[in-house]
């Protein structure tokens, strides 16, 4: 359970990091290490070089504007917990693993690792976050709908560094998660966000479900129902939740049958929408409850 040998570099700029990635075969970025270190310990990853981003100060900024919050990729997850600048992230971050993981884990690391059972990829999908990536002599923005390609797969090229993520601010939002034990990856998790249109005149609902498929799933039919019919009554919320549960592609696995996953999708979409319209119902992971 000891990592295999590798070289180590700690550049102080993104440009240096990109150059190191481009010049070295099988180099890997090290952000918070909370996913990479287990992979090294289990020897599932054997990089020749680790490029540690902790000295790149430019990656730790948080910039708040009227419509969105832009997080540097190396912002640590414990800094997100309870965030008032982006309350949906502040609420979802409480569900990320444990304090000792959030101390080191980063927002960019979680998104680049791209586990659909993790909180941040689902929130990024729900609000339509924009990932900013820098490669050799180029930089580009990638929307959340283009960023996640499959289980642990993203649009990032081998020499690209995810530098910042811009999270649009929802008008109303909710987040709900079901895990077998406190701090575990989710069996099912749901983020809902009511997003303003560009001219702020209208709003539409966006609903993302994680933990079931290889990437977070946007439930487009349920979103349409919520936006057009509204979520004013319990019956309307139930209708949206039922629709969402038909849009996911669930398969039986060791811990949950497909039927159970669909039932929990409906339950969690319902809870998240209820939070969105009645913020007093927002729950925290320390509140004990039995599985629904």
């Amino acid at each position, binding site marked *: *359970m000891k990592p295999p040998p590798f070289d180590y570099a700690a550049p102080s700029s993104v440009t240096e990091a990109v150059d190191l990635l481009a010049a070295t075969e099988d180099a890997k970025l090290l952000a918070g*290490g909370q996913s990479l*270190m287990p992979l090294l310990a289990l020897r599932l990853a054997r990089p020749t070089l680790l490029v540690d981003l902790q000295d790149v100060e430019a990656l730790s900024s948080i910039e708040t504007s009227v419509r969105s919050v832009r997080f540097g990729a190396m912002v640590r997850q414990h800094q997100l917990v309870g965030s008032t600048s982006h309350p949906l992230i502040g609420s979802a971050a409480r569900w990320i693993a*444990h304090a000792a993981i959030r101390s080191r884990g980063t927002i960019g690391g979680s998104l680049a690792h791209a586990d659909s059972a993790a909180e941040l990829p689902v929130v990024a999908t729900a609000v339509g976050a924009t990932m900013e990536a820098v490669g050799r002599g180029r930089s580009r923005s990638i929307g959340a709908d283009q960023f996640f390609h499959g289980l642990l797969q993203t649009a990032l090229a081998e020499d690209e560094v995810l530098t910042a993520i811009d999270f649009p601010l929802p008008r109303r939002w909710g987040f709900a998660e079901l895990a077998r034990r406190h*701090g575990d990856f989710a069996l099912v998790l749901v983020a809902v966000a009511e997003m303003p249109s560009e001219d702020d005149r209208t709003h539409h609902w966006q609903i993302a479900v994680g933990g079931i498929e290889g990437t977070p799933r946007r439930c487009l039919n349920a979103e349409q129902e919520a936006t057009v019919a509204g979520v004013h009554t319990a019956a309307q919320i139930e209708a949206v939740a039922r629709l969402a549960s038909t849009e996911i592609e669930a398969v039986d696995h060791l811990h949950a049958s497909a039927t159970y996953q669909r039932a929990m999708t409906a339950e969690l979409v319902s809870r998240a929408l209820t939070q969105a319209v009645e913020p007093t119902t927002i729950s925290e992971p*320390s509140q004990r409850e039995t599985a629904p």
Partner: protein
Amino acid sequence: MRVEFTVNGSAESVEVEPRVTLADALREELGLTGTHLGCEHGVCGACTVLVDEQPVRSCLMLAVQARNASLQTIEGLERENGSLHPLQQAFSDCHGLQCGFCTPGMVMTAVHLLATNPDPTRDEIRAEMSANICRCTGYNSIVDSVEQAATARGALARDD
């Protein structure tokens, strides 16, 4: 690589390969074997230490990443006069340990909990301590221990 940091207030310098974890540097290079290694891949919490006052699984951090950091380990909790830290005393009083293997990580997690939330509810204690796995106690006595330490520290604070 040469790495410098402070451990429990004293400056230390170790020469390690990049692949050496912080846990192994503490144990093998500095002889601080109070930090225990259970699973070595970030699941059990036994190796929890504080890095710049934040709890960290020292098997999920490279020693080279800890350069210039301030570390606290279980060895640093005992008072100068030899008396136990309120959490150590509470774990003893409430039978918060049996074999003791998980205890250093449990105590360091609880140190951070009480530093950030001096008067936690039992549910909050359970939520926070769920980061650490114990195979002996069934956890109730661990929750009791943290609760007693919180009460004791509250009493200490009022006496000041």
